[in-house]
Structure formats: C-alpha cells, structure tokens
C-alpha cells in the first residue's frame, strides 16, 4: 500500500492517518514527559550518591556538580527509559514505532530535508551564540565546561548517546506528545506551543547545577533560553515537512553528534 500525498491546498497541520489514534490520550503524554523528568533528576542524583559512596567527592552541593560531568552519558539511560515508555504506549494503543516517524520518506528526501533543517537552524544558532556570549562572555557555558569523562565514556557519548537521543527525544515530543495534545486541544498551534515550552523546560534539568548553596537558576534559565529557538524551529519544520521526523532526527544527530565529538576531542571546554 502506498501513502497518498495530501492535496497541495490542505493546511500542513491536519493530523494525518500515519499518527495512530492514541487510546492512552494525554495521560500517556504526561507519563512520557514525567518519566524523562524523573529520570534526568534520578540518574544525576544516583551518580552523585555513587560519587559520595566512593569517596571521590565532598558532601553538600559539590556531588551534584561533580555528577553533572556525566550528564551526556546519563542521557543514554533517560532515552532508554523514554523508548521503554514509548514501546509500552504503542503496545497499549496498537501502533508501531515506524508510524510515529511520519509518512514514508526516501533516503534522498531525508538527506535533502536534513540539509534544509540544518540551514533553517542557523538563526537559532545565531541567537544561542549571542545569548551565550551575553551570559558567559568568552567562557565555555557550564553544560560543556563540566563534562569530564574517561576515554571509554567519551567514545560512548559520541557513538551511542546522540543516536539514542534521536531515537527517543524528538519521537517522544513530536511523534507522541504533540498528536495527543492536538487531539485533546483541537488547536495545533496551542499544542505545538505547549510542546516547545515543556521540551525547552526539560533542558533545565540536564545537567542540574548548584551554585551558592542553591540550585543555579540562572544557568537553568540560560539553558531553556538557548534551546528554545531550536525547538521552536524544529517543531515548525515538523509541520512544514508534512510531519516527517526523519530529516529532523538526521539534522539533530549531526548537531548533537558533532558537539559530543568536539567535547571528546577537547575542542570545546
């Protein structure tokens, strides 16, 4: 069976048959986002606890900052947990993972789309760079400065983590959460706005940093502000590309994989 392309005059925001009807509804979306939030917090706290037990860090707020050095590796556990919840939701709703990725897309369309996504992300990169410069000057922003991994973990963070992130994160927010919110709210732009805000807010948790005896809220705000334009752009592109996720996943993999590689090679931080 072949997919019929939607008529040219139709708005791009109409939910498509490729998105499975979700019996679990918005509750499933809340479980998914809640799992990610809980895992980000739980894994970093767990690593901090291990560091204290191993005696490699002081008590107080220091263990959290020391544990933050592992946040890129923590991401693999968060994304595995995300994939597990997506699998559970799919079993309950009777859908398939492939259908979450949108209509069939040829390899050349994925490649061309990914180049387009990267080009469309340039304004977001410019904004993020200016914000970083305004907040931290010439210094490396904390989420990169804190990364300090042994060689094996560095290789893992370059080869495995970015791939897992693409299989889980955009699929969770754009493939699972967004259609459920659209179904519930009936207004795609409201659903998209909520997704972008929640998705950006989640970034405040990786990593959680402590400063002056309390949580570093300034860093959390910077983190949210620096990713917001990227997430807004990618969500808009999801609609513009007819709900095709693969070009967005490919472009994000290039950006995140490149950043991880630069960190591992000591080019950043």
């Amino acid at each position, binding site marked *: 069976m072949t997919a019929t392309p*939607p*008529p*040219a005059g139709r708005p791009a925001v109409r939910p498509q048959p490729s998105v499975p009807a979700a019996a679990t509804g918005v509750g499933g979306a809340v479980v998914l986002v809640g799992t990610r939030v809980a895992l980000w917090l739980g894994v970093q706290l767990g690593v901090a606890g291990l560091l204290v037990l191993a005696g490699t860090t002081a008590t107080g707020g220091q263990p959290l900052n020391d544990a933050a050095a592992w946040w890129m590796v923590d991401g693999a556990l968060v994304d595995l947990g995300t994939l597990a919840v997506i699998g559970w939701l799919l079993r309950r709703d009777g859908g398939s993972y492939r259908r979450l990725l949108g209509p069939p897309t040829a390899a050349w369309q994925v490649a061309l789309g990914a180049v387009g996504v990267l080009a*469309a992300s*340039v*304004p977001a990169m*410019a*904004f993020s760079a200016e914000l970083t410069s*305004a907040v931290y000057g010439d210094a490396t922003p904390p989420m990169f400065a804190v990364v300090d991994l042994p060689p094996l973990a560095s290789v893992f963070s370059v080869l495995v983590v970015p791939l897992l992130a693409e299989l889980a994160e955009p699929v969770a927010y754009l493939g699972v959460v967004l259609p459920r919110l659209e179904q519930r709210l009936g207004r795609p732009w409201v659903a998209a706005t909520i997704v972008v805000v929640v998705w950006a807010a989640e970034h405040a948790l990786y990593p959680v940093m402590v400063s002056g005896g309390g949580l570093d809220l300034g860093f959390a705000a910077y983190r949210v502000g620096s990713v917001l334009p990227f997430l807004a752009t990618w969500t*808009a592109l999801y609609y513009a590309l007819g709900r095709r996720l693969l070009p967005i996943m490919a472009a994000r993999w290039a950006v995140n994989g490149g950043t991880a590689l630069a960190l591992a090679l000591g080019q950043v931080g």
Partner: protein
Amino acid sequence: MHSRTLYRLTYLAAAMSLGHHLDHLIRHNAVGWPLTGQVNAFTISLVVYPAIATGLLLYRAGRVGPGFWALVSGGGAVFVSAVHFGPAAVEPPDMILGHYDPPILGWLAFTWLVTFVAVLAITCLYETRLWSQQRQARRAAPPATGVGSKR
C-alpha cells in the same frame, strides 16, 4: 490549486520584514537610500515588497507556483542571514543589540530578526515540499485525452 497556508506564510514573512525595516528606521544605523544617499543592503532589501506583490498577483493568476515562492523565501533567508549572521556579516548582531536603551529592546529586535529568518527558511522548506508534491501529482495524473482520439 492555491494553498491557504502559503498565503498566510507569505503575509507573515512580509509583516516580519516590515517590522525588521522598522527596526532599521528606529536604530538609524545600516540604512541607505531613500533615507540616505547611499545604496546598500538596506536599499536592495526593499525590492522584497514589489517582488511579493507581483508574486501574489501572478500566483492568484496561476502563472507561478510554490517553486517560485520557495526561491523568493529561500533567497530572502540567505540574503538576510548573509547580512546579519556569520563572519562576513555587514550588519552583525552587535549593531542591533548595542543600539537600544534599555538593552531589552535590542534583544526584542534581535529576537524579531531571528524569528524572521527562521520563518523565511521554514516557509522555503514548506513551499519546496508543496512544489515537489505538485510535480509528483502531475506526473501521476493520467495523460489528457486528445481531441481526435477514439473511444
């Protein structure tokens, strides 16, 4: 067939372009003819308004399609990006961020610019997809029956 989304995105991009030109007027830096005697990127960028008006008339008449709009949006995105972002930018972000008091207004103007370029780029991709779909639909459509053909 005309796309309502394409119309809306075109109006949005035109409104954002107007807002960015207003930002130029308020800052009064990096402006050119007709405000000064110098012909520069500002002057060239004003071509966008007659281009959009002509394009809308031709689109309504069925003379141009999404491919035309993809070129206009993509060309606009490349032009504005080249002028404002990157190492060779003639009007880098500092020229916007550093010319407002209070500074938050500079950030608003810069956010507007970033959104404007993103809208152009996203619109270009949407129009490219629309153009590709129309081409596929035309190719898939059965050939028209000739006048003299027999049943």
